[in-house]
């Protein structure tokens, strides 16, 4: 660890802040490295596993930012459900022989590099011209030391319509995935609605 980092740690006041600083110094580069590895890795399975590590880092950041419920949701939904879905589809479709070697559109990668550099410069410039200083408020105090209860209260009062709408969205997504995943060639059960529909034309 560099002297700069060591000095910064000694200057931190409470033990909790010191722990957060140390963990941030470890986890933030880890998050960036795993994200880069995800993009640059030629094997899609390694990409997925690196992305899982990235999601765990983000869950730790959510805890530091006093979003304990979302940290749990991040691990359960993203690292648990979504990445399992990704790996399942990867295994189902077979590991494709990778594509990174040749570029199919001429000049695509230089153009991508320029655009990405512009985007990064723009966002960093925006962050440094309008600096958000300070450590913010104590969200635990705002939530009455119970993050889950506070979020649940907001979800079922102010955002209840959005909550119901996302429920509907999830149902539609599940039905859509079933329809997309159904094999077209297989004979349908006799008398089913889909079979009658097929006989119409």
């Amino acid at each position, binding site marked *: 660890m560099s002297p700069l980092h060591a000095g910064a740690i000694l*200057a931190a006041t409470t033990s909790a802040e010191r722990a957060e600083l140390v963990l941030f110094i470890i986890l933030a580069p880890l998050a960036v490295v795993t994200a880069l590895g995800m993009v640059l890795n030629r094997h899609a399975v390694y990409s997925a596993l690196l992305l899982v590590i990235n999601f765990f880092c983000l869950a730790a950041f959510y805890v*530091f930012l006093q979003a304990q419920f979302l940290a749990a949701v991040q691990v359960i939904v993203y690292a648990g459900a979504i990445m399992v879905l990704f790996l399942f589809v990867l295994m189902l479709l077979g590991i494709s022989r990778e594509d990174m070697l040749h570029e199919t559109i001429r000049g695509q990668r230089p153009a991508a590099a320029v655009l990405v550099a512009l985007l990064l410069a723009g966002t*960093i410039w925006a962050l440094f011209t309008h600096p958000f200083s*300070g450590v913010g408020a104590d969200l635990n105090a705002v939530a009455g030391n119970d993050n889950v209860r506070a979020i649940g209260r907001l979800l079922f009062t102010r955002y209840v319509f959005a909550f119901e709408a996302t429920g509907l969205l999830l149902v539609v997504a599940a039905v859509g*995935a079933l329809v997309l995943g159904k094999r077209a060639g297989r004979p349908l059960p006799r008398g089913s609605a889909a079979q009658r529909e097929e006989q119409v034309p």
Partner: protein
Amino acid sequence: MRVEPSWYLVLSALLFTIGVAGVLIRRNAIVLFMCVELMLNSVNLSFIAFSKLNGDLNGQILSFFVMVVAAAEVVVGLGILVAIFRKRSSTSVDDVNLLKG
């Protein structure tokens, strides 16, 4: 010296940019989806950092909804991918060119 929410904003910008780079240079549709997930997650990190900065829980709620929509998007997207794979035996986006003029 202690960690400020603005550090998380810079980290979020970095992760988002990496996700955009992945979408621009990769050709495997599954990896493209992973890059989109990375971008959604980096924006979630921003929302939560702003939530802490402003002392307002609404940012966390919004982040929660982003997660739900991301889950739905992945389910439908991977379903489409499986359907395309049945037709074309490939997950490369270059092979999906039916609408190409």
